């Protein structure tokens, strides 16, 4: 059974039917839920919002939804690889390629990125004493563009097949000559649209952090998470345009008949260079915010000042800078010659120095501290050894002659999962547990949190540690099966067991959210963790203007200093006065929708969709140009106390 969808033949086989069914059932469930609990109004308020913490919540929820999808892909991959010559459902050959490509692409662009940007949205304005981001409209727009891109890549599975060329989408494999299905068109357009959103968000955070700090919040007094956001935003700013160009070339080659990336007429290496000029900074875009979160969490729960604050900042900047100098280490086996390989090997290894500085500074921060072993702290402590393993294998991979052996083997898969899961994802969990009470006004259950942590960490090591050995034994990445005599059965089976354990761990996390939402005491107060930075001086959840009066800051860890030396009160930097807040608007959502329609039109090559998308986007931008002067003047009525902070 099959039908045609804009010229693409879609076979209704079991997995595609399951896909349609799950979309249909989840849609029905959502409608029933929203109607039964009368939440349509609340949803509409979120759709229209331009407020940073609400946009942050949108980012976090969308990111977790994609997390479940990409996690399901991972489980399918592991089920297929569990045994030699296994045939799990339909996921062999091309379908397997669809799964591993969607898993990688989604996890990087639609899970790690939005979760990190979501936490930035939630925490950064509060940490620097700002009312909102510099451009609230742009912030909402960034979110909707990201969602449009994510929707495109996710929907592709049931509309003719997902992308199949791996998350790196190397040409010439990714050209229509070798992968004629529409999957890779969805890749190029989906990432393009969400990439624009990410770029806008970076500009937004840069301007916010540079212009919107409260009086006295000098750069070298900012919390480390804010510093990490600043450096990350610079990386996004200079890295994403390279991806934009790469995807543009891919789109023209696939859909408009040019041959720039073709092996014969054009030059396939252009893709690899552009992709990794973006791609290597991208991995630092993912890890630096996690570093920032760990710094804040560790100082809070070790009750100590961050050891070597300025060296931590310099290390962040240095990692960000060196991150642009190492992209050839993904291309050692391309054959660019020993000189270029040697230079990039050395620059790669030198990144271990600032990273090592950070690891030791965290250890010295913990040393002699009064440590509280709660969930966010456990995630931070679990991160240190896990990430060190990932870092060490990274230096191994940077050794050029050895890399010829590791290249494209499971060793690489093990390595990058150790840094991305062991670094970024643990950091995201630490951040979510840490800022949850500030965001929602209640704590996540600590006992369930600890179950979540231990099952996740143990499952993580069981899943990914064997991959190093598989790689050393010669198992290449991106294969859907292997032979019994390869001696890889036990390792693969262990890895699959670990993956399902991580899947179970995510269920514990979801259960924790539900349980805590039902049963956790509300009234956590302003400062449930006995925190150090100024986000803990305001109510949880904060009023929409965050600070009724902006606090004056005299040092880093200003709130801790105030608690220690100023009876827990911060001086106000201004009189109580009406605060200019942005208006809600649905225009960002509509722009995202028209972008989706337009990009879809490009993929299926239907001109009227393209036209509608283009006119819609331009029309809304013109409209916004005439409506950008509206402001909401909010007058907070707060106690006439002269100091800020403490319980009300």
């Amino acid at each position: 059974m099959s039908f045609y969808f804009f010229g693409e033949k879609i076979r209704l086989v079991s997995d595609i039917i399951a896909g349609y069914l799950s979309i249909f059932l989840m849609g029905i469930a959502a409608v029933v839920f929203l109607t039964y609990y009368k939440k349509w109004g609340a949803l509409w308020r979120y759709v229209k919002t331009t407020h940073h913490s609400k946009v942050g919540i949108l980012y976090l929820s969308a990111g977790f939804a994609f997390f479940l999808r990409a996690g399901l892909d991972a489980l399918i991959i592991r089920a297929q690889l569990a045994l030699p010559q296994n045939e799990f459902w339909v996921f062999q050959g091309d379908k397997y390629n669809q799964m591993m490509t969607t898993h990688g692409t989604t996890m990087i662009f639609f899970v790690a990125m939005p979760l990190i940007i979501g936490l930035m949205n939630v925490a950064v304005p509060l940490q620097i004493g700002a009312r909102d981001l510099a451009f609230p409209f742009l912030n909402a727009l960034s979110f909707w563009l990201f969602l449009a891109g994510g929707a495109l890549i996710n929907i592709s599975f049931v509309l003719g097949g997902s992308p199949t060329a791996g998350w790196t989408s190397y040409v010439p494999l990714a050209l229509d000559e070798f992968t004629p299905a529409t999957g890779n068109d969805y890749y190029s357009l989906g990432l393009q649209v969400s990439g624009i959103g990410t770029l806008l968000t970076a500009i937004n955070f840069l301007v916010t952090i540079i212009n919107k700090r409260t009086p006295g919040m000098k750069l070298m007094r900012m919390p480390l998470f804010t510093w990490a956001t600043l450096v990350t935003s610079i990386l996004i700013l200079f890295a994403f345009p390279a991806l934009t160009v790469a995807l543009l070339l891919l789109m023209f080659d696939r859909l408009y008949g040019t041959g720039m990336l073709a092996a014969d007429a054009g030059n396939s290496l252009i893709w690899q260079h552009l992709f990794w000029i973006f791609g290597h900074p991208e991995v630092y875009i993912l890890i630096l915010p996690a570093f920032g979160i760990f710094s804040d969490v560790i100082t809070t729960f070790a009750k100590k000042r961050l050891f070597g604050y300025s060296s931590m900042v310099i290390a962040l900047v240095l990692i960000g800078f060196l991150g642009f100098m190492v992209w050839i280490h993904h291309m050692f086996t391309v054959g660019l010659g020993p000189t270029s390989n040697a230079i990039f090997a050395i620059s790669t290894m030198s990144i271990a120095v600032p990273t090592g500085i950070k690891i030791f500074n965290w250890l010295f921060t913990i040393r002699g501290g009064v440590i509280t072993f709660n969930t966010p702290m456990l995630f931070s402590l679990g991160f240190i050894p896990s990430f060190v393993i990932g870092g060490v294998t990274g230096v191994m991979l940077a050794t050029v002659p050895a890399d010829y052996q590791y290249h494209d083997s499971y060793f690489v898969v093990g390595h990058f999962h150790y840094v991305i899961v062991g670094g970024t994802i643990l950091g995201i969990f630490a951040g979510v547990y840490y800022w949850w009470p500030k965001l929602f006004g209640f704590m996540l259950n600590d006992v369930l949190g600890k179950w979540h942590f231990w099952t996740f960490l143990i499952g993580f090591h069981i899943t990914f540690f064997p991959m190093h050995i598989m790689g050393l034994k010669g198992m290449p990445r991106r294969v859907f099966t292997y032979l019994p005599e390869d001696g890889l059965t036990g390792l693969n089976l262990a890895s699959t067991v670990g993956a399902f354990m991580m899947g179970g761990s995510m269920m514990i996390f979801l259960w924790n959210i539900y349980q805590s939402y039902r049963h956790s005491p509300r009234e956590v107060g302003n400062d449930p963790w006995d925190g150090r930075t100024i986000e803990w001086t305001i109510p949880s959840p904060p009023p929409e203007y965050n600070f009724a009066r902006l606090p004056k800051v005299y040092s880093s860890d200003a709130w801790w200093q105030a608690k220690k030396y100023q009876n827990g009160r911060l001086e106000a930097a201004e009189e109580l006065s009406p605060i200019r807040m942005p208006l809600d608007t649905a225009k960002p959502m509509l722009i995202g929708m028209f972008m989706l329609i337009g990009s879809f039109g490009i993929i299926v090559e239907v001109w009227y969709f393209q036209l509608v998308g283009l006119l819609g986007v331009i029309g809304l931008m013109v409209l916004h140009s005439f409506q950008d002067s509206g402001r909401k003047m909010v007058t907070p009525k707060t106690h006439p106390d002269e100091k800020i902070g403490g319980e009300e």
Partner: protein
Amino acid sequence: MMAEEKIVFSKEFTEEETADRVLGLWFFIGAEIVLFGCLFGVYLTLNNHTVPGESPGELFELKQTILATFLLLSSSFTCAQSFLGAKKNHYKKSFFFLISTFVLGAAFLGLEAHEFFKYVREGHTFTSSPFMSSFYILVGTHGTHVLAGCTWMVLLLIHLKRERITSYTKAKLEAFSLYWHFVDVVWIFIFTVVYLIGKAGIIY
């Protein structure tokens, strides 16, 4: 804790809002530099991937491009005059020079469209060789920026007409003039790298 809310529509930007916009545009230009840098890289890699009779030296005509360069660089001057006029609250000067900028930008676009049509008529289309594709993408992306700038100018002219010189229109004009100067700078590089060096027959 309660809060009072009041919605206002004021065509005034605070100094902070203006500063945010200008800084944001600077960062945007930073990203654009990388974008055009990559496009230049692609062009320089592919400009020898071509078919006989379709090399830069045979294709380009300097006379017309020099005229286009002259138009676009003059538009930078008029754009600066428009912004200076706004700074001195001189509405008429600002408006006149912004219209001049628009006319010069539009004339530039006309010349570029003429050039592209000529090539296409001669059979040098977007898909005829990787060289042509990368040429159209690089020069076309710049042209799209000019087009976007012209559209932006139409909006600015309407704003100026309606609001005269206020902190609101000044902020918009300042952001625009930054953008427009950047687009001009990119053209100088395109003129040098694509047209002059191409005409001289130097191919990498």
